[in-house]
């Protein structure tokens, strides 16, 4: 459904490389995640795929159409929700939605079933201007506007950034339902924990891909044994474990440290006890996507 071949793009006459050779394909009906921090090149990829930006090198197709030659056709078929709110601030919720439906030659009524669940939540405020809405409501309206013409592909650029845990969960539940409708979804996020909600993900950093696989495949490829180390004094524990000669990597993960070792991990606990961490414990754990991302960054 989406195909990228050796895509490169830089800004400022080549001074700022944004995407440095990305090849990727997304299957029809897939929920595909682009996972990476700010500056990884996620937005540049979205802008190329939605025909708003021409790549310096490489080719890309969406639904079999070339992003440069067939840009007009692509625009009528895809839905795009940019990271920055870009609806008309002076139009009301209802006017914005009507506007987008009209531009795409359809009506709100025709595809109402697609947006119903989301739209119901903002409908009580339908006469309010978009500029006066809260962040969460703007996000919901933007999604409705991106869906109203029943796109075959939906591009969502960081839809959950700055959104609290509860709303983020709801948003991903909704994406699962849109997937059931057969819509292919490419979504980006800086939150590693959201990767597990995708069919496949690409971990990207500094314009190139670190890895592409299913979330499980990425976790299975983690090459070392990973341990969670805990004690009551987490901050001191971080220093102590980093000082341990056998430690390879050590990162804080909430209430525990995630540690890999160069050799035998067993001497760590006695060593920590000597340092006064009497309650220190260690257990082997399955890595998460964030562990994998950190590992790939380090290598």
């Amino acid at each position, binding site marked *: 459904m989406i195909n990228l071949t050796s895509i490169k793009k830089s800004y400022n006459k080549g001074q700022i490389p944004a995407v440095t050779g990305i090849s990727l394909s997304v299957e029809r009906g897939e929920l595909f995640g682009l996972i990476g921090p700010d500056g990884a090149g996620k937005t540049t990829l979205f802008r190329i795929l939605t025909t708003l930006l021409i790549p310096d090198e490489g080719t890309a197709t969406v639904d079999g159409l070339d992003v440069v030659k067939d840009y007009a056709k692509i625009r009528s078929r895809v839905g795009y929700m940019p990271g920055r709110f870009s609806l008309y601030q002076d139009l009301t919720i209802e006017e914005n939605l009507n506007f987008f439906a009209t531009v795409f030659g359809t009506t709100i009524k025709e595809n109402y079933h697609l947006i119903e669940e989301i739209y119901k939540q903002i409908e009580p405020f339908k006469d309010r201007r978009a500029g006066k809405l809260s962040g969460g*409501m703007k996000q919901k309206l933007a999604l409705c506007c991106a869906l109203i013409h029943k796109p075959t592909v939906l591009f969502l650029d960081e839809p959950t950034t700055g959104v*609290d*845990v509860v*709303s983020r969960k709801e948003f991903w539940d909704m994406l699962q339902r849109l997937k059931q409708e057969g819509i292919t979804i490419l979504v980006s996020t*800086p939150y590693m924990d959201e990767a597990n909600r995708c069919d496949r993900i690409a971990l990207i950093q500094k314009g190139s891909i670190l890895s592409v696989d299913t979330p499980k495949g990425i976790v299975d490829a983690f090459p070392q044994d990973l341990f969670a180390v805990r004690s009551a004094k987490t*901050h001191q524990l971080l220093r102590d474990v980093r000082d341990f000669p056998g430690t390879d990597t050590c990162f*804080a*993960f909430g*209430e525990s440290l995630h540690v890999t070792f160069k050799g035998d991990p067993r001497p760590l606990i006695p060593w920590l006890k000597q340092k006064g961490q009497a309650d220190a414990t260690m257990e082997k754990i399955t890595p998460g996507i964030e562990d994998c991302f950190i590992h790939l*960054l380090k290598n």
Partner: protein
Amino acid sequence: MAPVISTNQLTKRFGQFIAANALTFEVDKGEIFGFLGANGAGKTTAMRMLCGLSTPSSGKATVAGFDIYTQTEKIKQNIGYMSQKFSLYDDLTVAENIRFYAGIYGMSTPAIKTKTNQLLQELQLEKEAKTLVKALPLGWKQKLAFSVAIVHDPDIVFLDEPTGGVDPVTRRQFWDLIYAASDKGVTVFVTTHYMDEAEYCNRVSIMVDGVIAALDSPANLKQQFNATTMEDVFYELARNAKRKAD
């Protein structure tokens, strides 16, 4: 020792809407205090009052020993503030940014000079002193932004989602800075949407619909809500929030 922040029934109304409702809490010197809440719960309103940027409707509070009604200018001089949108000037060099912020906070020229050298050394940015900030990698910018926020040695620093959008390694390095500041006695008041970061705080408050719904150490909160992670605690508290539309 007197707390660095002390509030009593602190309230802010916008017309009929009570954005922050009777907030009562204290934050101790050197504490890392996590200030969590769902979108629209009232965090920003509360922070603006504590920073002296918004006058409360009722209630009392002191920040760094100063009254938030009558001594807002004193408060501003004695706090630091950093948000996720870097408050650095891209077109100034590293050294110029430090000098600018130190100047804003009224430091003397010799003090600024000493502080600049000290910071450049601590941040290992001596070679980059004359580099424009826009050319720095994101992680360095973030460290610099934090350092200029506390350039005037404030009693307390407010961090508003300081780690949004940064990669996982940089995010953790940033917490090393927070720990270092806290060890020096700087009180850290931090908001975040990363629930693992809530675990790094000494105490955490969670706002729901304008009130503080819970306030304790992460370990006690997990026990209280019979949860294994702070994410579960947060979810338990925030999922029934009425200010849903936000």
